[in-house]
């Protein structure tokens, strides 16, 4: 009995050290990224002072093909496309791919934009599911719609790439809309530096905002708590996560909701994978792996000011499904490109960002959830005292709050998009409250995603239940 108790003591002691070390290392990384992002934003912001002045086009802006894969998006697609068509940019085209929707997506598009079948010389550079028809809008010359058999988001994006005409491609989710000047901003890096192959923009939460004529009329916060917590999550993910890694030249994620890529490079690496749920991240990681393998000089950049707004889930079921899908996508992206990790020319991406993503983002939920569970079990079995249990929980929550509040601070230093005092109070509340349950729940969902990836359960388009509130508000205003 005494031998057993000595073993348990060691187990408890080892666990406490293990989880503590994990928290120290992850906090060290996150705080480091936060500081990098802070300095980068501080250096970047003064350069924006003249950006709000009326802009003159230089004529050197590279033309862009905006690619919008759509699957059962009848609720929000019209508002999204309207906003795309009004973007302030000299030359661009919009290509929507209806990926075998079972709702009326194609019908609403056909009616709203006066689509007619068009004999397009479609060239299948990337292999995709069968294209059924290509339409061109008679009201907007730069709008085309491709109807195809269902093949997933990656397959739809590849179809759009095949049909695209311009050297830059911009993937945008069908439930998102871009800020009017966002294309102009996101192409700067391509014009400044020939080595740039991809640029990611910020994605923000559209729930609670009001859209008028396809554009953001009023910024607001969602009334729903789940959506409110996601506002903070998105700030954390974009403002310090991606910005920090971008500065360090280790950006592994460019959101499919708003990313611009050089088409020739995407074609060279084989386009998007159609059998993954995280096609956006997978493409970026594969680009890193293959470009580094070929010893090409390249850069992938994240910019905080070009913004796309997207609707986030407001119910547990949809959110759970989304997070499971994201985690699966992360696992697929990393394990499908293990060659990047510690590769000879891996650089920051292969030697720092990849291992970080693998340990803290991919396997992190396993460690986090097991930590909470073990601590609770130890307490229940009376192996740790109540104060010690509380201290460990206190450390975990303290770090969580620090990270959330520091991302809010970054937002306040830079863009302060949420401009009403009640917004800031709401965000401060969310930054604290999301650590008391939401984050832990999220870790559980991500752990489920990890298991589903391990046990090979396939996940489809991962369709989200759309409320399309901002589109409805627009309709009301129109009416």
């Amino acid at each position, binding site marked *: 009995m005494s031998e057993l108790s000595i073993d348990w003591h060691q187990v408890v002691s080892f666990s406490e050290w293990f989880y503590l070390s994990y928290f120290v290392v992850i906090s060290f990384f996150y705080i480091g990224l936060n500081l990098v992002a802070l300095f980068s934003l501080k250096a970047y912001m003064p350069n924006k002072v*003249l950006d709000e002045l009326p802009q003159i086009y230089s004529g050197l802006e590279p033309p862009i093909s905006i690619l919008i894969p759509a699957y059962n998006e009848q609720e929000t697609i019209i508002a999204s496309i309207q906003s795309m068509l009004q973007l302030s940019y000299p030359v661009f085209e919009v290509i929507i791919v209806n990926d075998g929707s079972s709702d009326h997506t194609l019908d609403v598009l056909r009616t709203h934009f006066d689509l007619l079948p068009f004999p397009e010389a479609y060239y299948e550079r990337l292999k995709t599911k069968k294209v059924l028809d290509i339409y061109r809008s008679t009201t907007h010359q730069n709008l085309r719609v491709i109807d195809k058999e269902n093949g997933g988001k990656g397959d739809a994006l590849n179809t759009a790439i095949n049909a695209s005409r311009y050297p830059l491609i911009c993937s945008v989710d069908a439930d998102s809309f871009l800020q009017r000047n966002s294309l102009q901003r996101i192409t700067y890096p391509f014009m400044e530096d020939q080595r740039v192959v991809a640029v990611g923009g910020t994605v923000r939460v559209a729930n609670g905002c009001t859209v008028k004529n396809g554009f953001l009329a009023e910024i607001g916060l969602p009334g729903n708590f789940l959506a409110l917590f996601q506002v903070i999550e998105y700030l954390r993910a974009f403002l310090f996560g991606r910005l920090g890694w971008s500065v360090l030249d280790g950006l592994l994620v460019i959101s499919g909701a708003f990313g611009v890529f050089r088409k020739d490079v995407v074609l060279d690496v084989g386009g998007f994978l159609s059998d993954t749920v995280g096609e956006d991240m997978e493409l970026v990681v594969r680009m890193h792996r293959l470009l580094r393998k070929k010893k090409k000089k390249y850069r992938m950049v994240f910019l905080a000011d070009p913004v796309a707004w997207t609707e986030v889930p407001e119910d547990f079921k949809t959110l759970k499904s989304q997070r499971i899908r994201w985690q699966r996508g992360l696992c697929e992206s990393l394990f499908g490109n293990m060659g990047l990790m510690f590769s000879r020319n891996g650089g920051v991406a292969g030697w720092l960002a990849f291992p970080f993503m693998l340990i803290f983002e991919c396997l992190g939920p396993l460690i986090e959830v097991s930590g909470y569970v073990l601590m609770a079990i130890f307490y229940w079995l009376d192996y740790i005292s109540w104060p010690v249990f509380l*201290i460990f929980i206190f450390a975990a929550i303290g770090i969580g*709050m620090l990270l959330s509040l520091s991302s809010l601070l970054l937002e306040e230093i830079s863009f302060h998009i949420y401009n009403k005092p009640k917004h800031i109070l709401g965000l401060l509340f969310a930054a604290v409250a999301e650590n008391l349950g939401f984050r832990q729940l999220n870790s559980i969902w991500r752990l489920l995603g990890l298991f589903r990836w391990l046990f090979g359960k396939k996940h489809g388009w991962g369709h989200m239940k759309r409320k399309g509130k901002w589109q409805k508000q627009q309709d009301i205003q129109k009416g």
Partner: protein
Amino acid sequence: MGYAALSDTRVVIAFWIGAISTLLAAICLLEVIWMRIALVLKERHSHRYVNTAKLWIIQVIAGEAVEAPKIAKRDLPDFLYIWIHYQEILRGDSKTLLNQAIHRFKLEPRIRKLLVKGSFEEQLIAATALGHLGDVQSWDNLVKLLRKPSPLLSITAARALVTIDSAKACNIILPLMIEHRDWMPARLAIILKQADPFFREAFLTYLESSAQQQQPYLLRLMRLLDFAQLNQPLSLVRHYLMTGSDPDLVAACLRLVCHPSELDLVRSRFGDEHWSVQVQIAGVLGRMGTSQDAHYLLSLLNSRFWWVRYRAAQALVSMPFMNRQAIKRLSKSRSDIFARDMLLQMIAEKVHR
């Protein structure tokens, strides 16, 4: 078993991690609140001020008699910002009226001071404003800004100098346009677009004379020639069309072909198999080709590159002897399915237009 004591190292570390992060989180929270209060107060003041300043500027543009604007030191950048805004969107007499108002109320010395002693943002605003004002007295200080490490600040100063006196700016700015590889081509293009013809001519001459030395960077600069509004053949273009082997450079030269006398040189590149060169050749032939080029364009219709086929089809369709029936006949005669599809697309595009 015994509990881990509160004094155990791991517990102490966990406690301090929790305590320090909570303290830092609290500091962040207070900082956010404090920054927001400061921002609200600043914006409230700024909003009131901006409205007054806008009204004043509109009265100036309307030619009404106005009193000297009340501009506190902290409001000067806001005032100038609005003033620049109107300068950028207005043309003709209104711009002159805006400049006269600044001159009449003796605001230049304050702007000059901002240029020298202001923050980075204030220097950007002041340089832009002084450029619009054509302020010769700021010349030396603007030249000093050209040496600043920030490419944005130096190119803003360059734009101001070209606006103030393009002839005098040539000697300083032209070598810098070639040397400063951190100057964004888009901003250089805007300088060229807005500069007077004299400056553009000087840029062309400078580029032609220094082309050999600048060859590695020539491509970047040749893109800018699009804005030089060429109407005469360039010896630079002729030279690289005859001898160039870099496909990107040859393609850039083909973009600059503007005179029928250069057509033979273009035809001399018919053997070039690089797709970017072929696209540009098709573009040139679409603009000024003759019936003798149709055969070459037809051969491009079989290219494996979509853009080559597209431009070749576009060029063919734009030729004067090509009506809809002729294109249809041509399409039927093609054995290659991609060539046929492309011609059909061209017919549809013609109908759509």
